[in-house]
């Protein structure tokens, strides 16, 4: 099974290298196929590891160490991969969804000027993400963590001639670097006390309460930045500047869910700092409400889905934070399916409209694109969590898991249900506005075809997965996924609801979700379009996304600009520039003097070199 894991890890890197080294010697179309093939090979490797692990029984964890990567005294870090239930599950999701999305990209990116670069970056991303989830120790995990940040930066800024894309890429990188830094600081504390970054010793490190809280806060900072949770969330909506398949892959299905993986992976640490773990749950709850509210007023189709992603990751954080790790991971999986489906469905529409992303200009497109319409509907129902679509099984089990936690459990429960209502409203506002309303939008290319088969096939497969993907687990009756993950990330006892609680919560969640859809129908439905009630103050707050960008602007950007301006006006122009000519003259004179040493004659150089060596040798002999 370890060979499978190594194959899974390095196949995408091979794809990147092949595309990069072949350069313009291969046709553009070939780059896409190389990338797709390499990621499908990676998926094969993941399946191989999965069945290997199943044959051994899922209680096993296998670390395969290639070589010692770094050594400093007794501290040693190996380049190693870990095959255990959690990592194989992530390998399957990451490589499987990536393979479909890269196949989709072949159609979507066709004709772009720099297709080869795009596919090289995509493969690089898949490699980085697999390194993150397969890493056999915390340092390899951090390396993958940084590399996914890099590939995300490269892909957000892929259309580098657009200033907004470059700005968004920088923003994402800086915010993620903040998270990387807090994580690295936490790791330093672990190295100091456990003398190792291997999982087992690191998770059994003995720390005082405060130190443990700080370590876990550091980890949580990394997780929140990568997963776009409040207050480190502002980069994700801007990241939609990247090509749509990038949004589907990195900013919906895989990379942004890495924070949930991190919490599940390092849960022994989180459980020793239970307060911080509950802070994570609270953060998730706050995010799911805020993102759901903001999504109500967005008009860019990709931004609506982006806020919905933030909101759904909020649910996963809630699940992982209260100790229901398996439920969080389950929602991660179904979310990967239906959110990739929604993004790619949106991509089909954007592609057909020649790059238009404003939902108000998409009215009426549904009549021309029946297949996309149905698939998008399946994805939307899965997102809201209507029986029997994916989200129903995974989201409701997270909500009901909050019930045994005392008063804050009830707060989480109510907030999560309100979030479900909001999900219903914003999702179907999008669906009704784009697909069922009457309008004059029509595809640019010839009618009859909604897109090339490379685009429609992955969307169809994900559509099927969005419908049936959740059936794998229905907590009250069958729970293979929880059992599979229990050796690595066993659900805390306090996060195990009774069957009655599950049934009641599920029923309420479905009703609330349907109510949300009903409200959306009343407001945005085709034949009965009414004036949307408006509350200007609230609407302005939401359109400004709760003023987070403005706040960070005032807190960080404006003060540094003020300091820089003051520095330039009073220090540079006051002292440095007047002194400039003198400094310059002195430097010129010194330069001329030193320049005379450069005779340009090889023999003098050799002579000085030899003499210097001889002098040094003699000095050393004498001193010794």
């Amino acid at each position: 099974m370890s060979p499978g894991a190594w194959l899974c890890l390095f196949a995408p890197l091979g794809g990147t290298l092949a595309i990069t080294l072949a350069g313009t010697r291969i046709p553009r179309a070939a780059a896409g196929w190389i990338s797709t093939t390499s990621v499908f090979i990676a998926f094969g490797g993941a399946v191989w590891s999965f069945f290997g692990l199943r044959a051994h029984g899922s209680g096993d964890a296998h670390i395969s160490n290639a070589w010692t990567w770094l050594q400093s005294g007794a501290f040693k870090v190996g380049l190693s991969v870990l095959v255990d239930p959690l990592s194989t599950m992530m390998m399957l999701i990451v490589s499987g969804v990536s393979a479909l999305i890269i196949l989709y990209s072949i159609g979507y990116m066709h004709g772009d000027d720099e297709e080869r670069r795009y596919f090289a970056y995509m493969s690089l991303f898949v490699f980085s993400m697999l390194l993150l989830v397969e890493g056999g120790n915390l340092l390899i995990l951090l390396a993958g963590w940084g590399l996914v940040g890099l590939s995300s930066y490269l892909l957000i800024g892929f259309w580098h001639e657009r200033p907004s894309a470059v700005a968004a890429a920088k923003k994402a990188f800086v915010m993620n670097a903040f998270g990387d830094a807090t994580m690295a600081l936490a790791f330093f504390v672990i190295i100091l006390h456990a003398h190792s970054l291997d999982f087992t010793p690191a998770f059994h490190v003995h720390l005082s309460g405060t130190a443990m809280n700080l370590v876990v806060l550091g980890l949580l900072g990394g997780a929140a930045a990568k997963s776009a949770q409040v207050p480190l969330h502002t980069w994700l909506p801007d990241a939609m500047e990247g090509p749509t398949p990038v949004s589907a892959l990195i900013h919906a299905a895989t990379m942004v869910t890495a924070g949930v993986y991190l919490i599940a992976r390092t849960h022994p640490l989180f459980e020793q700092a239970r307060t911080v773990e509950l802070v994570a749950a609270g953060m998730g709850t706050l995010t799911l409400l805020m993102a759901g509210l903001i999504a109500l007023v967005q008009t860019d189709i990709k931004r609506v889905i982006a806020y919905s992603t933030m909101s759904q990751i909020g649910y996963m954080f809630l699940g992982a934070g209260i100790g229901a790790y398996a439920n969080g991971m389950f929602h991660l999986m179904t979310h990967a399916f239906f959110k990739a489906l929604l993004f790619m469905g949106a991509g089909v529409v954007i592609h057909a409209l020649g790059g238009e992303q404003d939902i108000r200009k998409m009215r009426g497109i549904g009549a021309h694109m029946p297949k996309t319409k149905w698939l998008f509907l399946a994805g939307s129902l899965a997102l809201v969590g209507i029986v029997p679509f994916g989200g129903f099984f995974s989201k409701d089990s997270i909500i009901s898991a909050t019930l045994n936690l005392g008063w804050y459990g009830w707060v989480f429960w109510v907030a999560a249900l309100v979030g479900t209502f909001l999900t219903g409203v914003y999702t179907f506002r999008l669906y009704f506005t784009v697909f069922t309303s009457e309008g004059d939008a029509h595809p640019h290319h010839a009618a009859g075809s909604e897109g090339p088969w490379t685009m429609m096939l992955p969307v169809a497969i994900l559509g099927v997965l969005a419908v049936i993907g959740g059936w794998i687990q229905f907590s009250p009756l069958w729970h293979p996924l929880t059992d599979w993950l229990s050796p690595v990330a066993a659900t805390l006892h306090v996060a195990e609801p009774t069957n009655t609680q599950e049934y009641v919560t599920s029923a309420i969640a479905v009703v609330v979700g349907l109510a949300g859809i009903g409200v959306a129908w009343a407001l945005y439905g085709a034949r009965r379009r009414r004036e949307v009630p408006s509350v200007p103050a609230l609407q302005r707050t939401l359109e400004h996304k709760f003023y987070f960008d403005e706040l960070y602007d005032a807190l960080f950007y404006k003060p540094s600009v003020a300091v820089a301006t003051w520095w330039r006006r009073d220090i540079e122009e006051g002292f440095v520039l007047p002194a400039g000519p003198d400094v310059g003259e002195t430097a010129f004179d010194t330069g001329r003097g030193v320049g005379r040493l450069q005779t340009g004659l090889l023999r003098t150089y050799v002579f000085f070199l030899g003499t210097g060596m001889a002098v040094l040798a003699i000095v050393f002999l004498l001193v010794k």
Partner: protein
Amino acid sequence: MLGPGIAWYLGVSAFLFGVGALGVLLRRNPLIVLLSLEIMLNGANLALIAFSRHAHNGAGQIFALAVMAVAASEVCVGLGLVVAIHRRNLELDVDRLSELRG
């Protein structure tokens, strides 16, 4: 141990190195300069191998092999430069090739 003592080997090695160094310092033809460099390297190699025998440790001989490989590549580059200079009809004189003079 059979054969002369290590001092003899080191003496020959120092002599080779000195001859090579003088050649590099005094000759002006780049070809001869390269040749003298080779002699210096071989002097160093001889010392490495002598110490290796003396200490019963194979590492020195491995180093010598590595030095030979580096020397071979360096000569390739050097001769390539000499040929390139010749093709451009420049004088083959290291003192005339002094465009980096300050």
